């Protein structure tokens, strides 16, 4: 029920945006993420973007995980 999936914002018009989800496009509302802009990835839940994905944090988490994996080889 609380499922949310990453979607890439392709265009923005007012509070609505068109997003790409693995090749599928659809209209979504940006009412909950007014800061979202074209090129951002958002977490999409029931037609609304609920969070802008923090690309820096995502990169940092993966970097740490990969360092950990290498260190324990």
């Amino acid at each position, binding site marked *: *029920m*609380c499922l949310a999936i*990453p979607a890439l914002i392709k265009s923005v018009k007012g509070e609505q945006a068109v997003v790409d989800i693995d090749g599928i496009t659809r209209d979504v509302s940006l009412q909950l993420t007014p800061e979202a802009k074209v090129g951002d*990835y958002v977490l999409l839940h*029931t037609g609304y973007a609920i969070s802008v994905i923090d690309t820096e944090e995502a990169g*940092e988490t993966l970097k740490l995980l990969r360092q950990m994996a290498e260190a324990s080889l």
Partner: protein
Amino acid sequence: MKYVNEYRDPELAKKLLERIHQRSRKHVRLMEFCGGHTVAVFKHGLRQLLPPNIEMLSGPGCPVCVTASADLDKAIALGKLPGIIVSSFGDMVRVPGSQASLQQARAEGADVRIVYSAQDALEIAQENPDKSVVFIGIGFETTAPTIAASILRAEQEKITNYYVLSLHKVCPPIMKAILDLGEVRLDGIICPGHVSAIIGSLPYRFIADDYGIACAISGFEPVDILLAVEMLVEQIESGQPKVEIAYRRGVKPEGNPAALKLLDTVFEIGDADWRGIGVVPASGLSIRKNFEKYDAAKSFEIDAGPTREPKGCICGGILRGVSTPLECKLFRETCTPEHPVGPCMVSSEGSCATYYEYGTGVEKPAWT
């Protein structure tokens, strides 16, 4: 898909598992609160891969499952009133109430529409100006802001035939209620990822501070969940419970301020009736007085009749973490996804549907 595939990397998952096996010594019981986490844990076979001293329990984090029969009966009674279109998310339509489900009410002539989004329900209202459209508002903090947004849009666009039956619930108070019941001893909680995208990490602080229970907010891919488990094990083994975020790409400590503001504009904290638990004070969201013209509970006379729980169904105990689907006599016999008796078999994130779909959590997964 970007931000998904990286977190399904089997090599990273194996390394995290190695670390968990090395570090974990104590016998611990961890609850994954969210139904989405239960599905991910079962789908990827994570229970079987964790050390035997780590026990995983499923919690009440499935909004469809925790909707009380009495509330469901109200939704069905609304659907039977003349001139009303009831709209709801898909799973909700199939949950049996005391007498019938919304799906059965539809077969008997009620106008029940399944929608993907509250935006769709608003559009139905615009397309049917001579009808009243009631959206059955279920969901936690993840979904409630979207319903708040739909009410504000109705206000802006002067849509006067749109109503919400607010059955929304909030998570931290029910976690407290389960801990206070004292039926299950927990050492750690995997906190819900997308609820936390809205509320942040601070509302869980009391769990670590007052109850000494470890908390980690997790995403929904296997690497996310294993990272959360690793954080919990570290907190427990070092005796330092706190709230950590294993899902930093989606969750900030302060949550989503715009969504929280919308929530606070439209809703106020109220009591909520949870299936299997009962009425828990301050665990739900009611529509504020200045938006009461959108409140279906105040706009219509609802006579739902007496409430009856399905006979033999133990969904209540399953939602509190004291029973598993395997202990239910109806499971796989009379209760199946095609013919569900209780809500935990209806929702795709319900524990019973998950056990039915992915096995009992003891078979070793193929990817290892």
